[in-house]
């Protein structure tokens, strides 16, 4: 019996020839990532358990990327950044992206990719549930809590139960109006928010392999919204090219065996996909965008690890160019690199930034911002009964701030089309 990519990576990191789903094993960790929300708690557990003088297991494998509560006057949020800064100094950690310096990056999952920390075949843990994003590079990545992260800081190891794998294959070609976010919301809608609980979600098929790295990242990003342990796509030439110049580590390229055992397999015809939204208040509350045209909106939000990458803004700009938004539209680049791209990338001679400004959008600074609500002064945070269309990942009650607001999740094309009309709109009208 063969093995899936996930099983092969985990076996290799436990010095085993093979593993079976359901087994508990200890794996060696290649990268541990933390940020400003969970870093301080992780550090205090690390010190309590391993001693005040303890040193992390391998400074080169620890990556600290503050990104959640950055542009706020909240004193405690700012204090948490100071805790990270002090720890980095004390431990002499080389991979820290400090707020207010030229090293600052923004949203950790996108920054991990930009900085070359997503290396095929490796094991990466992060104190954030969207750490599954990195699986787009053919590596095992998943989110953990402070305690597990502190355990890794001290030992370089963590126990993992081998997940069963679900395989989602897309044959043929995606139509030009379909984005990774549509595919993902379709699948989550089909299997439900606990449809992949503690399972690996493996994306495959020629349509998936034709996607760019950024789109692949979006596909793996929301594995957690189906309860998945990880999302994964086998690494290929596209992966290799993306990583060129970002890391000197080539990594190990694994693929699933043809006789690997899957818990579930489903094949989709890529050409049949339609633009979809997830209605309030659950990511699996799927509907076709064209079925929701009667939903009037107050706000459009384009940003986050899920929908705030350069590809996402190029898509939105295609629709917004030369037009004016009808509702408050917030543009939040995930990282500083993406922010720079807004001034570099052009559509017919006009930069994305100018397109957004001329369309009447508000532009924020790179961070997680209102994706998860955040402190009261967070850019784009809902404060009342707003109805929002958003390229982010969660629409739970209160997720973007106010408990009374309602969030529709969508791809950047659908979000931009809806910003132009003031109600949910199928982007095919503009493409």
């Amino acid at each position: 019996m063969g093995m899936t990519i996930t099983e092969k990576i985990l076996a290799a990191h436990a010095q085993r020839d093979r593993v079976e789903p359901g087994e508990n094993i200890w794996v060696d960790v290649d990268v541990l990532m933390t940020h400003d929300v969970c870093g301080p708690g992780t550090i205090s557990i690390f010190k309590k358990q391993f001693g005040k003088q303890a040193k992390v297991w391998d400074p080169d494998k620890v990556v600290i990327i503050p990104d959640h509560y950055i542009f706020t006057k909240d004193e405690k949020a700012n204090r948490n950044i100071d805790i990270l800064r002090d720890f980095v100094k004390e431990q002499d950690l080389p991979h820290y992206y400090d707020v207010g310096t030229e090293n600052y990056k923004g949203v950790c999952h996108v920054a991990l990719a930009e900085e070359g920390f997503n290396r095929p075949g490796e094991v990466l843990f992060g104190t954030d549930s969207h750490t599954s994003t990195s699986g787009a590079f053919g590596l095992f990545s998943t989110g953990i809590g402070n305690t597990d992260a502190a355990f890794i800081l001290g030992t370089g190891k963590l126990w993992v139960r081998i997940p069963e794998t679900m395989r989602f294959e897309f044959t043929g070609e995606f139509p030009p109006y379909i984005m990774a976010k549509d595919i993902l919301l379709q699948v989550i809608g089909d299997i439900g928010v606990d449809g992949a609980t503690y399972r690996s979600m493996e994306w495959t098929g020629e349509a998936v392999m034709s996607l760019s790295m950024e789109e692949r990242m979006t596909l793996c990003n929301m594995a957690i919204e189906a309860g998945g342990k990880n999302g994964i796509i086998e690494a290929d030439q596209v992966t290799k090219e993306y990583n060129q110049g970002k890391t000197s580590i080539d990594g190990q390229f694994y693929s699933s065996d043809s006789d690997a055992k899957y818990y579930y397999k489903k094949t989709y015809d890529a050409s049949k996909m339609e633009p979809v939204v997830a209605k309030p208040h659950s990511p699996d509350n799927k509907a076709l965008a064209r079925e929701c045209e009667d939903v009037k909106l107050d706000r459009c939000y384009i940003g986050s690890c899920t929908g705030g990458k350069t590809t996402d803004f190029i898509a939105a700009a295609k629709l917004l160019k030369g037009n004016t938004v009808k509702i408050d539209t917030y543009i939040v680049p995930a990282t500083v690199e993406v922010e720079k791209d807004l001034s570099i990338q052009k559509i017919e001679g006009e930069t994305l930034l100018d397109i957004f400004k001329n369309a009447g959008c508000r532009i924020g600074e790179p961070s997680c911002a209102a994706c998860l609500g955040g402190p009261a002064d967070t850019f784009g945070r809902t404060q009342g009964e707003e109805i929002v269309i958003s390229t982010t990942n969660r629409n739970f009650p209160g997720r973007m701030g106010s408990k009374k607001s309602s969030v529709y999740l969508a791809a950047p094309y659908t979000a931009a089309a809806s910003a132009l009309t003031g109600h949910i709109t199928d982007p095919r009208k503009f493409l």
Partner: protein
Amino acid sequence: MKKIIEGPAYVLGNNIDTDQIIPADKLMYSLSDPEEKKFYGQFALSGVPDAQSGLPKGQMSFVNEGEFSSPYKIIVGGNNFGCGSSREHAPACLEIAGVEAVVAESFARIFYRNSIDGGFFIPFETEVSVYQEIETDDILRIDVEKGTLENKTKNKTYNLKPLGDVADIIEAGDIFQYAKKAGLIKT
């Protein structure tokens, strides 16, 4: 590990996510400073919509105004309890509020791991859905060794799923105690 956990129930529905358990605008409090930490108790479950707060009636506070702990010892939920973020503040805030057990039909995995590895409380899974049969304020009694959940108010007993491999970590206290016992880290 406590063998018997007994107290009033606070009942919630399906898919209780971590933003409902502890909203993101409360995550900046320190989890180690005793004075700041208590706010996690105060804001535990403060993101749950009022209509779903304390089923079946709803509109019931988990923590009374101005208090830092809850009168409820056992939380009962449906499917996929603790879905969403990896924030350990979620199981932590429930423990700080005084919760000793969460009983649900199923848990989201990160929340489940965090509850056990951090030693906050035991996440018990039930064989059948129970949240529609238990009312907030019913008195529940969990017998950890027997693996049963008794509703003393309604005089009905349910089986809990065996804890499986994670029982060793629960027995040890947390992942660190377990690793020390197993010789994986030095004491």
